[in-house]
C-alpha cells in the first residue's frame, strides 16, 4: 500500500487535533505517514502522539535552519519528501499556512490541489473529495487528475479514530534554497490561551453578534456551561467587542461544529458562509424575522440577556 503524507499541525511540538483527523482520513487512502517539521528535540513526543492514530512512519524535518520563515521552506521540504516516497496523496490542514504550503507544493510538483475538503474517501483512480461551496449552499465532489493529489482538509471533517501505528521516526535532511527564505517572521505574539477550545476545532461554538450590544457575559457563560468555544459575528468584531480571531464568517473562521448557537446574530450571508454546515444550529434573537431563524433546528425569540443566563443556570444545575 502506498504511503499518504500528512503534514503535522502543531505548536512547538504539541500536536493539534486536526492532525489526528488527517491521519484517520489518510488510513482510508493508504498507509499514513506523518511529516513533522519542527524542533528535533520534540520528535519523540510527536511520534508518540501520532502513533495512537495510525501513523506508520514519522518523517522528522528539523526546522532549526528554517524556523521563522513563512511557508516556502516547508513547501520545499514536502517536495523533497514527495519525490522520495511517491505517496498516494498529501494531506494538509486547511489552515492559513497549510493552504499556502499546499499551493506552493502543487506548482512545484505539478499536481492538482483541492482546498477545504470536508470529506475525503478512496475512489477509483484516487481520492474523491467533498467541498461545501457558495456559503454552504452547494456540495461539490471532485478529484485530482494530475500528479500526486494534494488535499487540504477542514477541521472537524472526520472523527479521529485511534489505531496503533509503528510511528517509526525517520530523520530527513532537506535542502532549502535561499529564495525560500524571503519572508521572515520578525515578531510574534502567541495567542493568549482562553482556556476554551479552539474555535475551528470545537465541537460546540457559542457566538454573539450585534444583539449582544457588546456584553458577551451571557454568551461566554453559556459557552463555558457547554464546554464550547466563543465566536463573534463581523458586526461584533467591527464594533471592537471581540478581536478578529473570534470572527465566524466568510472573512473569518469557517466552523462546522456539532452544535452552533448564534446569539443576537441576524444571519447575513457573510456570517452564514462560516457556519452553515454546522450539524445542529440554534439561535436566540429578539427579532422573529431575523434570517438566522431560516437555518435553525431550534430558535428562541427573546432577549438574549435574559434567556442565556437563565439557560446557563439550568444547564449547570443539570450537570
Amino acid at each position, binding site marked *: 500500500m502506498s504511503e499518504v503524507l500528512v503534514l503535522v499541525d502543531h505548536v512547538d511540538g504539541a500536536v493539534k487535533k486536526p492532525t489526528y483527523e488527517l491521519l484517520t482520513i489518510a488510513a482510508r487512502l493508504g498507509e499514513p505517514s506523518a511529516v513533522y517539521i519542527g524542533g528535533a528535540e520534540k520528535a519523540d513526543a510527536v511520534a508518540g502522539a501520532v502513533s495512537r492514530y495510525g501513523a506508520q512512519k514519522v518523517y522528522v524535518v528539523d526546522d532549526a535552519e528554517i524556523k521563522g520563515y513563512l511557508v516556502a521552506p516547508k513547501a520545499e521540504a514536502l517536495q523533497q519528501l514527495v519525490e522520495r516516497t511517491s505517496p498516494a496523496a498529501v494531506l494538509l490542514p486547511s489552515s492559513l499556512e497549510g493552504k499556502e504550503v499546499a499551493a506552493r507544493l*502543487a506548482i512545484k510538483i505539478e499536481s492538482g490541489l483541492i482546498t477545504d475538503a470536508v470529506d475525503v474517501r478512496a475512489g477509483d483512480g484516487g481520492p474523491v473529495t467533498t467541498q461545501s461551496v457558495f456559503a454552504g449552499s452547494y456540495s461539490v*465532489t471532485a478529484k485530482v487528475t494530475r*500528479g500526486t493529489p494534494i488535499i487540504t482538509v477542514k477541521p472537524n471533517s472526520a472523527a479521529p479514530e485511534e489505531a496503533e501505528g509503528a510511528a517509526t521516526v525517520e530523520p530527513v535532511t532537506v535542502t532549502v534554497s535561499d529564495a525560500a527564505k524571503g519572508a521572515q517572521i520578525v515578531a510574534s505574539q502567541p495567542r493568549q490561551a482562553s482556556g476554551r477550545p479552539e474555535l475551528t476545532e470545537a465541537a460546540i461554538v457559542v457566538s454573539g453578534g450585534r444583539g449582544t450590544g457588546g456584553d458577551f457575559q451571557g454568551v461566554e457563560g453559556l459557552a463555558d456551561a457547554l464546554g464550547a468555544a466563543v465566536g463573534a459575528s463581523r458586526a461584533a468584531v467591527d464594533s471592537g467587542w471581540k478581536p478578529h480571531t473570534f470572527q465566524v464568517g466568510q*472573512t473569518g473562521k469557517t466552523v462546522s461544529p456539532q*452544535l452552533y448557537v448564534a446569539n443576537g446574530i441576524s444571519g447575513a450571508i457573510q456570517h452564514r458562509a462560516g457556519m452553515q454546515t454546522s450539524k445542529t444550529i440554534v439561535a436566540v434573537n429578539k427579532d422573529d424575522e431575523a434570517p438566522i*431563524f431560516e437555518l435553525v433546528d431550534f*430558535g*428562541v*425569540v427573546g432577549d438574549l440577556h435574559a434567556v442565556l443566563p437563565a439557560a446557563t443556570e439550568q444547564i449547570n444545575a443539570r450537570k
Partner: protein
Amino acid sequence: MNIVVCVKHVPDSTADRHFEDDLTVDRVGVDGLLSELDEYAVEQALQLKEKAGDDTTVTALCVGPEKAVDAVRKALQMGVDKGVLVSDEAIAGSDYIATSLVLAKAVEKIGAESRVDLVMCGMASTDAAGSVVPAMLAERLGLPQVTMASVVEAQGDQVRIKRDGDAATEVVGATMPLVMSVTDQSGEARYPSFKGIMAAKKKPMATYSLADLGVDPGQVGLSVAWTVVEDATARPPRSAGEIVKDEDGSGATALTEFLAAKKFI
C-alpha cells in the same frame, strides 16, 4: 514603485449562484462584480502610492470573461492608474493552477518595461474562496509572499506586515519584489468619487489574449485542469426547526430541554 493589484470578477454572493452543465461556475448568467475582498487590496495599493508620493504606478489586473472588465473599471474608478484584462475563451474553466499561470505571465508582461515591485491580492475570492492563488503566484514568479496582512507598511523596498496567524499574531518582513495579500481588517475600501468615475474613462486599459502573453492555450481551461469536479448538488434547504417565543423564562427552559434531548448537556 510599480504595483499590480489582482482583481477578480465574481458572481454576486447575494445572487442565486449556481453551476453550468459542465460543472463550472456560471459567470455569465449571474450578476457579477469586483470581489469585495479585492477592494481591500486596491485600497492598500492606493494608500502605498499616496504615502510614497512619487511616480508609483498601480495597475489592476484581471483574468476573466469579457464582462469581467467591470471589475477592472471599478478599480480604475477607485483610483488605480491602468487596467489590464486577460480574456480568452480558452481560459474558461481554469483551476487555481492555470489561473496562477496566466496571472504570472501577465505580471511578467506588465513588468517587461519596469520591474513589478509588488503584486497585491485580496485574502480570498468570494466565490472559490481558496486563498491559494497568491501563494501560487509567488511560487511561479519566484518571489516571497507575505499574506493575510491586516496592517501594511513599506519603507523603500522593505515591507512589513502584521497578520493574525494560525497560532499567533505575527509581524513579517520581506524585501520587494514580493507578493502580498491583505484582509478585510486592513482598512475600509474607498468608494469611487464622481471625479474618479469620470477620470476612469480616460485611463489606459489593455486587453490581452493568451497569445499576447505567450501562453499555450493547451495549458489552460477546463479540459486540462489538474482537478475535475464530478458532481455539484444544491444542498437541501435546512428544514425550518422549532421556534419558540420567550415568555417569562419559558425560552431558557425550552432551550435547555432541546440541548438535553440532543445530548449536548
